[in-house]
């Protein structure tokens, strides 16, 4: 009997089911956050919808015990794999005191959690690329075999820090993986107004690093690419540039209305290429998932989302004067 794609990659049925469940969990948490936003309960959402396959495929290819991740604002899927819990993500959405990312200081999507090596991020884009090189440099100096995995959107590849960080990592052959989640829009500005190269991974050649473009709606394709990049990094072959091409299913954020710059047709097409639906289809076709199991998973995910929402809603805010804390070491 022919091996399925995931078996050829060395992934068990259990592992791909876990991947599927995490993708679904990210989606359902995200959908809940939009509902809460529209109900006036949380001020802001920035979405992972449409990016789940790339995020979870990539994160599964990393070593959760020793690698560092520097996620950008859409990466709920990446941080879920690295150990941030649904409760913690909801605490962040509600800006509650126990939000591990920032204690309610930053907007949602500004991830950070030291115990899981999720490196704190900001809103100015691409500043995290040099940070990834610095993390990798620190690990290299200490002789640790950790990889720094950093993500960004397609628009952010235009920033100087993308270039400076990529070049530094390449010159010093640092164990860095730069993954672009190319959804072809920087808010409203389409890819053709952002860059003139065919693939963003073409830029890898200019930095002297390995680069590849993969289908970002296919978690197995992304897993394979990032696994290869991680192996190269651990073998001392330096950084990689992985471009994942995918579709943003929602507007840029809860404050954006994409109907002013995307046609209904285009949005429908993006929805038709939903990575969760296509992965479900793959799992059904390969006999890993059936209706009964799928319902069990969905029920479990919804229960988790409900519990997390309830937990975060009841959790306390920081005290007003907590705004004064942690400017310097105390």
């Amino acid at each position, binding site marked *: 009997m022919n091996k399925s794609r995931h078996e050829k990659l060395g992934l068990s049925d259990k592992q791909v089911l876990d991947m599927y469940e995490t993708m679904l969990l990210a989606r359902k948490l995200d959908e809940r956050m939009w509902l809460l936003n529209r109900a006036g309960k949380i001020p802001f959402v920035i979405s992972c919808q449409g990016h789940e396959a790339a995020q979870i495929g990539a994160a599964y290819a990393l070593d959760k015990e020793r690698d*560092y991740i520097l996620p950008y604002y859409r990466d709920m899927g990446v941080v879920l794999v690295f150990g941030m819990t649904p409760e913690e993500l909801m605490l962040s959405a509600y800006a509650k005191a126990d*939000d*591990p*990312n*920032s*204690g*309610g*200081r*930053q907007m949602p999507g*500004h991830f*950070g*959690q*030291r115990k899981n090596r999720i*490196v*704190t991020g*900001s*809103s*100015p884009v691409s*500043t995290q*690329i*040099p*940070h*990834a*090189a*610095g*993390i*990798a*440099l*620190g*690990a290299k*100096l*200490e002789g640790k075999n950790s990889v*720094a995995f950093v993500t960004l959107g397609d628009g952010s590849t235009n920033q*100087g*820090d993308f270039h*400076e*960080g990529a*070049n*530094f990592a390449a*010159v*010093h052959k640092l164990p860095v993986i730069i993954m672009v989640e190319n959804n072809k829009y920087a808010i409203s500005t389409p890819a053709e107004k952002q860059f003139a190269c065919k693939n963003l991974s073409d830029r890898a050649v200019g930095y002297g690093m390995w680069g590849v473009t993969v289908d970002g709606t296919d978690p197995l394709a992304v897993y394979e690419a990032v696994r290869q990049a991680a192996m190269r990094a651990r073998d001392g072959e330096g950084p990689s540039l992985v471009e994942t091409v995918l579709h943003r299913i929602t507007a840029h954020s809860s404050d954006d209305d994409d109907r002013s710059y995307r046609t209904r047709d285009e949005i429908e097409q993006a929805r038709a290429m939903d990575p969760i639906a296509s992965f479900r289809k793959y799992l059904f076709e390969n006999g890993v998932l059936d209706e009964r199991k799928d319902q069990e998973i969905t029920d479990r995910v919804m229960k988790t989302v409900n519990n997390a929402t309830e937990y975060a809603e009841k959790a306390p805010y920081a005290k007003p004067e907590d705004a004064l*804390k*942690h*400017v*310097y*070491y105390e």
Partner: protein
Amino acid sequence: MAVLSYIEAVNQAIREEMERDPRVFVLGEDVGRKGGVFKATQGLYERFGGERVIDTPLAESAIAGVGIGAAMYGMRPIAEMQFADFILPAVNQILSEAARIRYRSNNDWNCPIVIRAPYGGGIHGALYHSQSVEAIFANQPGLKIVMPSTPYDVKGLLKAAIRDEDPVLFFEHKKAYRLIKGEVPEGDYVLPIGKADIKREGEDITVITYGLCVHYALKAAEKLEEEGISVHLLDLRTVYPLDQEAIISAAAKTGKVLLVTEDNKEGSVMSEVSAVIAENCLFDLDAPIRRLAAPDVPAMPFAPTMENYFMISPEKIEQAMKDLAEF
């Protein structure tokens, strides 16, 4: 005690800290084989190797940003900006990242980086090799800015900066590098960041300044002493956050205050010092607060005539002191 130049004190502090702590490393343009364009890192490449004394690509945002990443990882990077003038491409990394990492992560992450940069004029450096850039950073809680005047202060404060748990900008006056010499203890010592230092006790007028201007003010004060005017001189040493207690007490002591900076006057560090005094010392003052600073033109010109016109000098300080004493 050994007499060292200002730049030798920089070098000695880095060397001793690198010996003490394997997490300390240096990165910047030309800091390795060449030992830095001013030779601040001379001999470190030979002693510690290219892994800990890293010649970087010519890209300031990466020098700061990679250092910030390494600091978050747990290293103690010392990043060098070749000239303070060229720190501007790294401002986003310094303000949006380094200064906010502890606060934005609710104390989960921190960023113990030192960013060194030679600043200041009087060395025929023209617009882009002479600037004082501290005011750009001096209203950013989360950052510390140290600007020492003497070799003794350089060594003790640079060691303190390297051991600090938060990001420190360490601005070194490039004209002081070889001009200023002083006694420096051979052993290990640190000086407190955030504390100003009285460099001269006096009764009639108070001068508050920092960096190279401290030496110019001391020279002027000696001359005025011959004329019977006694000058109290406070060296800020840390220009952010300011040592408000020391400023208030120095201003109140004589009631006549002259603030000196080589930076442009408007919005300078001295504007904030002036506000601190105005808020706290109204009833102690016997004269309006005076500021002696560079004119409000973009930066220092190249020609010696215009450069001298721009620069603070002992003579300019002496004149300003006299005017204030006579008020």
